[in-house]
């Protein structure tokens, strides 16, 4: 497989401009003749569908939720980064680029990251024009807050509901196009396969989740904006419906999947309360702006937090990383919390938690100010735990949150299958091995509003792909295969539920391929997953039929894909013999000096994207490497001390 990243030449800050000029255009009158399928209606998908419809393309859009307004982008709380430099604190596109590249531990392309930083400012302008109610200063200007991994204040926000407001902005733009008849929307519709004809993406097969009908849709190009795969761990902060099926099916049809081992753990989640737990809840890490993180100095100190004097507390982030303190990047903060708990200094039931304490901030700013900034987060915390975060410290623990890995795409966001484009969290492109806070919203909207509308035109104008009829034999084959899988799931009538298998897989993954990984554990896991998969296909129970709304069947189909995908994730984690961002291999850490215990990347041998190619059922996938070259910023040890 050839990986051509198509990074344009020329100086870094001119690449995107010159590339845009060189991209072929589709004549305005011809755009309506091109039919584009967009799967997913989060920030990336909704923005792409709306913008392409505005340009005149004929668009069909799909989501599994009952409305495009509900995609999981909606749950992002903290904010969106943009290099506006409104605060006059020295921000610039170059600094945002630098922070993002460094935060990603030099495992992303310079050109992609710079483009993202460049576009960031236009996103804010666009969202303001749509009526997104960003927080304002008294003078009427846009307000900013600071966020992990940055020393400037560049994050725009709408209380604790930034994702919601940005998504509703994109949804309103999409709704306008639906109302105008320019986008045909299919809610409660799940993509179950990608169809490739003559080496090009020709369309998708979907299941109508209300009637169970399996249908084919063909188009000149297919865009996947289907989010990440955190739910392979069962417990994550993703919505319960989020799944890997779309990108995994695309992988099986030839779209290389890159860096699946880069998974992000979010440091500020509410700890697990029991086995019944169906998902984890994140609280925006903007809380770390004012909250101080600590654990007791002594292991087993069971005093009430108010009884522990400052001298017996370990504010470990402030101690270890004095210049970033409580705002150290996510991976570093998460591992530090795990370390403290492994030492027996964790707090709360089960000892898997650390304190996030607002007492100082309340003394300094007053409770009103804290309430104004984070009120909804305190409410959320109290609703879930029954505890009042103003009166006693919150308890937090890291949880799976975001996946940097995803479908491999070139600079045009096209996968290794011509005509298949992948946007937002679903692709691997901009965050390297670790994503900084408030950058996911930025990337989703950048891809959807400002990248794909240009780059897809080049594919259509250059390749002039023909639209394959939806009754083509390949569509029929995909539909038959899916129907066969459905019939099989319904006929097993075993003893265990799909949820039980999912939970079991998730636990295995979290234990051996979660926050810390090692060779022996991964090798063992790679043997256990096929066994679990085999058991699933012999012993799962899916009641009901295929031609109806069937929640067990939906779940079982997704779990079947997780059971295959998990293996790919582990294989990538095993192959990447270094520690890097969200991928921490215990064997690779500094053993002495100031950096002792820190992740040790291997820039000499692993400065590449690992793009896995499907080789067939029960065959080992093929590893292709896209070397990453750094012309502007030389990889250094990522120090936040």
């Amino acid at each position, binding site marked *: 497989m050839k990986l051509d990243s198509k990074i344009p030449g020329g100086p870094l800050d001119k690449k995107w401009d010159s590339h845009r000029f060189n991209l072929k255009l589709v004549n305005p009158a011809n755009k309506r003749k091109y039919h584009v399928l967009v799967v997913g209606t989060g920030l990336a998908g909704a923005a792409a569908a709306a913008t392409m419809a*505005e340009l005149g393309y004929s668009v069909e859009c799909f989501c599994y*939720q*009952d*409305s*495009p*307004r509900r*995609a*999981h982008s*909606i749950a992002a709380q903290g904010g969106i980064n943009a290099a506006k430099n409104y605060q006059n604190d020295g921000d610039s596109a170059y600094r945002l680029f630098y922070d993002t590249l460094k935060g990603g531990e030099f495992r992303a392309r310079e050109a992609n990251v710079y483009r993202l930083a460049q576009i960031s400012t*236009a996103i*804010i*302008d666009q969202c*303001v*024009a*749509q*009526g997104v*109610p960003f927080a*304002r200063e008294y003078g*009427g200007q*846009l307000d900013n807050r600071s966020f992990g991994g940055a020393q400037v204040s560049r994050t725009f926000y709408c*209380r604790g*509901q930034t*994702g*919601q*407001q940005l998504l*509703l902005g994109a*949804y*309103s*733009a999409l*709704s*306008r196009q*639906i*109302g105008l008849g320019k986008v045909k*929307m299919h809610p409660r519709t799940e993509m179950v396969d990608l169809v490739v004809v003559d080496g090009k993406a020709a369309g998708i097969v979907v299941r109508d989740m*209300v009637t169970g009908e399996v249908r084919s849709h063909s188009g000149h190009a297919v865009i996947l904006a289907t989010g990440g795969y955190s739910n392979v761990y069962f417990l994550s902060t993703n*919505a*319960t*419906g989020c799944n890997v099926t779309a990108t995994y099916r695309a992988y099986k049809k030839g779209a290389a999947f890159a860096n699946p081992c880069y998974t992000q753990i979010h440091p500020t989640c509410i700890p697990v309360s*029991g086995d*019944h737990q*169906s*998902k984890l809840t*994140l609280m925006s890490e903007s809380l770390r702006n004012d909250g101080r993180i600590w654990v*007791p100095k002594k292991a087993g100190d*069971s005093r009430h937090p108010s009884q522990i004097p400052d001298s017996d507390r370990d504010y470990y982030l402030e101690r270890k990383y004095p210049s970033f303190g409580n705002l150290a990047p996510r991976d570093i903060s998460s591992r530090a919390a795990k370390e403290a708990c492994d030492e027996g200094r964790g*707090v*709360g*039931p*089960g000892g898997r938690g650390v304190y996030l304490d607002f007492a100082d901030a309340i003394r300094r700013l007053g409770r009103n100010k804290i309430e104004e900034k984070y009120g909804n987060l305190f409410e*959320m915390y109290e*609703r*879930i*735990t*029954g*505890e009042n975060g103003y009166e006693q410290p919150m308890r937090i623990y890291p949880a799976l949150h975001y996946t940097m890995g995803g479908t491999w795409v070139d600079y045009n966001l096209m996968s290794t299958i011509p005509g298949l484009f992948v946007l937002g969290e679903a692709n691997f492109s901009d965050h390297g091995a670790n994503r900084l806070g408030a950058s996911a919203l930025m990337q989703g909207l950048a891809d959807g509003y400002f990248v794909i509308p240009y780059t897809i035109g080049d594919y259509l104008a250059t390749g002039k792909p023909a639209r394959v009829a939806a009754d083509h034999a390949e569509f029929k084959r995909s539909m038959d295969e899916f129907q066969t899988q459905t019939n099989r799931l319904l006929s097993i009538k075993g003893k265990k539920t799909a949820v039980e298998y999912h939970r079991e897989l998730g636990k295995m993954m979290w234990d051996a391929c979660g926050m810390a990984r090692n060779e022996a554990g991964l090798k063992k896991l790679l043997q256990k997953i096929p066994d679990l998969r085999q058991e699933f296909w012999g012993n799962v*129970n*899916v*009641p009901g039929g295929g031609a109806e*709304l069937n*929640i067990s069947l939906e779940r079982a189909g997704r779990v079947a894909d997780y059971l295959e995908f998990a293996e790919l994730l582990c294989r990538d984690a095993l192959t990447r013999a270094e520690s890097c961002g969200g991928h921490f291999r215990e064997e690779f850490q500094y053993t002495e000096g100031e950096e002792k215990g820190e992740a040790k990347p291997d820039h000499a041998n692993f400065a590449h994207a690992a793009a896995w190619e499907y080789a067939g059922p029960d065959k080992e996938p093929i590893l292709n490497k896209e070397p990453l070259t750094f012309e502007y910023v030389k990889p250094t040890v990522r120090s936040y001390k």
Partner: protein
Amino acid sequence: MPSGIPFGNSKSRKLDMNFTLHVWRQANAKDQGHLETYVAHEISPDMSFLEMLDVVNERLIKDNKEPIAFDHDCREGICGTCSLVINGVAHGPEKATTTCQLHMRKFADGAEIFIEPWRAKAFPVIRDLVVDRSAFDRIIQAGGFVSVNTGGAPDGNALPIPKDNAETAMDAAACIGCGACAAACKNASAMLFVSAKVGHLANLPQGQPERLRRVLKMVEQHDKEGFGNCTNQYECEAVCPKEISVAFIAQLNRDYLKASLLGSGRD
């Protein structure tokens, strides 16, 4: 709790609660539907309401029975997917809380709980507790936006917006589109939902050019979908998980009156 575990809250972690559930079951849109009784055993007070239903469903599947279909997704109170009328109240007994964020510690052990879908003509039942809320999407499609294409927007700070206006707009924009307002209303009116979008944009300068046209179009679509009229009972505000104020309905009414009198806004 094992010794040596540092301070935790003192709540019971035992699975010691039991409930009798009366759940609406309806095979499909044509089926008449009925209430069926289930017993929920060994429920932890730390479970959310939906996690309690998950437990019931897992047992149903193990008994080879079809699980109860209900809508849910983010389970953190923001996507607006979950619904359920619990003991006659949309989203259940806790104020300003979606069903997914309602926890079993709010119920007495041994309680009987009635669980029904949203009831409104414009929200037809699809199966069990799942209803079709696409009417809300069509109301937004009729005018719940600022007509601006991607590209060419002026600098974000070119348009100063007084903080108070931005805050009021945000109060309205917080609506999650769950439909509880219509489910709680005796007229099945969705006026709180409509007024939230109208109010969000009416309080911002970006929303002014289409302000009157928007209110007419959205109300017209609301009526067409089969939602009833607002008669100021405020049941909607009482159940709204995001505490959207009925003051936005008053603002909508003023705008609607003005738009009607001026005869403006129609194509």
